[in-house]
């Protein structure tokens, strides 16, 4: 789960991480009001969206007086920002962060992630702040330093100090930098983050060390123990279909195309998206319904795929392992009854590939059903080709 920068900064502040003074604003009036409260000669007006690259896209403005705050706030609120992380459709700005300007001496990079190979939390730092870390890794890998953290010990003081010297934090700011690292690590562990990234971390003219930007991602599997984080969810940042699917307990990712698929198992679901593309179709989604789905869940999955006219055809790809093909087939028939008025028609062609346990019974249920446009595929390849052909023919 992702949250906004201003929310991340509030979480970090509660762990003792130094952040600029700032207040969120949802309207132009609020922006001006908050700029007054902050009262520094320069305030920063920052668009709050769940994507990086806001600065380059014109989403971060320096205002020298309240008129400028008003102008920038009216310009940004409601604007669609297109950054290299948003995709071409961009993201609409609904919130701003009004923040005290900082007297920046130098920018750095600092982050915590979980390293798969060592199964440890790793702290990464670089003196190339403000740049994307992937770019630094590609162009100047020697400028990235790492400290692997023993979960029993936590971030050891010597590791934080070593990092501070490695990335050339000036001597008067060393203690402040190591304190920030320790607080950030505590936040990372305390809130079950999957990413905590400060880019840039800055040393100010006064030799203070502050998190000028902040990005926190959280482990979805651990949200049950962080209801305070769950409350920060901004539903307007999420794809409405993905949101609806999550509520129904479905694993769904919108991919934007028109050939939909419904599959059991995440691996097979990814592979099904791939095979649709392989045969020239534009995949509409990734969808893992699991194997033991009820007819209601299958019906909801169909409705999500069809919603807004997105799916022009649906490929159902099921391998019955422990879960039986006949149960899935019965689920499709029941789903059709829920979706259509007459129980006999689905709005788009549905090609079904069933294989594995009780496959014959499953095929028979679908063949005997009154649903008009369900087509049985003899093989997975055949099914993928068939659905792509039918969607293209319908265009």
């Amino acid at each position, binding site marked *: 789960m992702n949250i906004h920068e201003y929310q991340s900064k509030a979480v970090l502040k509660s762990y003792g991480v130094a952040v600029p003074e700032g207040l969120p604003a949802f309207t132009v009036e609020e922006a001006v009001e908050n700029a007054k409260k902050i009262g520094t000669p320069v305030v920063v007006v920052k668009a709050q969206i769940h994507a990086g690259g806001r600065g380059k896209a014109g989403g971060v403005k320096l205002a020298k007086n309240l008129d400028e705050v008003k102008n920038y706030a009216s310009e940004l609120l409601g604007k669609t920002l297109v950054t290299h*992380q948003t995709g071409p459709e961009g993201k609409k700005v609904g919130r701003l962060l009004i923040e005290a300007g900082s007297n920046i001496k130098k920018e750095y990079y600092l982050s915590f992630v*979980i390293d*798969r*190979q060592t*199964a*440890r*939390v790793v702290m990464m730092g670089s003196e190339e702040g403000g740049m994307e*870390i*992937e770019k630094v*890794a590609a162009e100047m890998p020697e400028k990235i330093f790492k400290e692997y953290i*023993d*979960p*029993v010990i936590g971030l050891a003081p010597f590791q934080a100090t070593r990092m501070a010297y490695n990335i050339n934090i000036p001597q008067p700011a060393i203690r402040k930098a190591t304190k920030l690292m320790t607080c950030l690590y505590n936040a990372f*562990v305390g809130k*079950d983050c*999957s990413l905590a990234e400060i880019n840039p971390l800055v040393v100010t003219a006064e030799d203070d060390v502050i998190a000028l930007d902040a990005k926190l991602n959280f*482990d*979805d*599997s*651990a949200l*049950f*123990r962080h209801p305070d984080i769950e409350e920060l969810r901004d539903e307007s940042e999420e794809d409405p279909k993905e949101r609806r699917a999550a509520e129904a307990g479905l*694993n769904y*990712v919108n*991919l934007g195309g028109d050939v939909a698929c419904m*599959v*059991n*198992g*995440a*691996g*097979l*679901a*990814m*592979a*099904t*998206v*791939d*095979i649709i*593309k*392989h045969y020239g179709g534009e*995949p509409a989604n*990734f969808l*893992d319904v699991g*194997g033991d789905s009820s007819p209601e869940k299958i019906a909801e999955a169909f409705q999500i795929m069809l919603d807004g006219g997105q799916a022009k055809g649906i490929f159902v790809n099921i*391998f019955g*392992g*422990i879960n039986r093909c006949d149960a899935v087939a019965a689920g499709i028939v029941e789903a059709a009854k829920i979706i259509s008025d007459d129980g006999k028609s689905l709005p788009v062609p549905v090609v079904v590939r069933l*294989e*594995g*346990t009780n496959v014959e019974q499953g095929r028979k249920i679908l063949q005997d059903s009154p649903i008009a446009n369900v087509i049985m595929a003899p*093989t*997975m*390849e055949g099914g*993928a080709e068939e659905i792509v052909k039918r969607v293209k023919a319908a265009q």
Partner: protein
Amino acid sequence: MGVLVNKDTKVIVQGITGKQATFHTKQMLAYGTKIVAGVTPGKAGQEVEGVPVFNTVKDAVEATGATASVVYVPARFAADSVMEAVDAGLDLVVCITEHIPVQDMVKVRRYMEGKKTRLIGPNCPGILTTDEAKLGIIPGNIQKKGHVGLVSRSGTLTYEAAFQLMNAGIGVTTAIGIGGDPVKGTDFIDALELFKNDPETKAVLMIGEIGGTAEEDAAKWIKENMPDKPVAAFISGRQAPPGKRMGHAGAIISGGKGTAADKIKALNGVGIEVADTVAHIGETVVETLKKAGIYDECHTC
């Protein structure tokens, strides 16, 4: 033969009184697995499918001499259950549970350091040594005995692959589902090493997916350490957009790393054939076996 488990391995089921665990205990017993005990705190003295239940893993081990366990415990308690099994000195723990917090697994891995237990999973379908034993949820009827080792990050793709192999007449020694989580007990290289040392296994099929660099690392390892056993592969997630989690917690392209293209390139680079679509996994294995001159030997069913 095969690896990790056989018909004599004595197995505990942790969380045996749960609905899923009870269902799969029946399936595992039917396959011939020697399930000797179950563990659910507070349920000692009960029986599930004729299997005696104990309060702790230690009690179960002392009473039965079990050396392996399979964990079906709910996510928020599963990491603790794995550590309990490690503490009891088991050789093998297979954790089926999905959605265990990643930082819980970081602690588990730290706890396991210096101890002898091997962990498979979490978030996996388990392991199945053909005609001997299964620990987990892999269906037993689609995997025939043979000489190909199967290792996979995905459950359904394990079944899909075993099924395609069976239809192509190719049998399997052991299928190992290593799981879809980013932090896990056994990765590709560990599984490959087991297959390398198993005389019955003549070739390996590995099924990877986006996220992390385990497939790239495996490619390098295979070139350096296993030149004599041919490997075929499949990678899912070619069309996955960056930054999106595709069902599995570990299936995400982040920071430009973990793309299917990189993995396929690394595998092809060491001479490993990668199936172009999921429908061609079986064919790709057959071609690989033929090229290595061991097709007849591996055509066992």
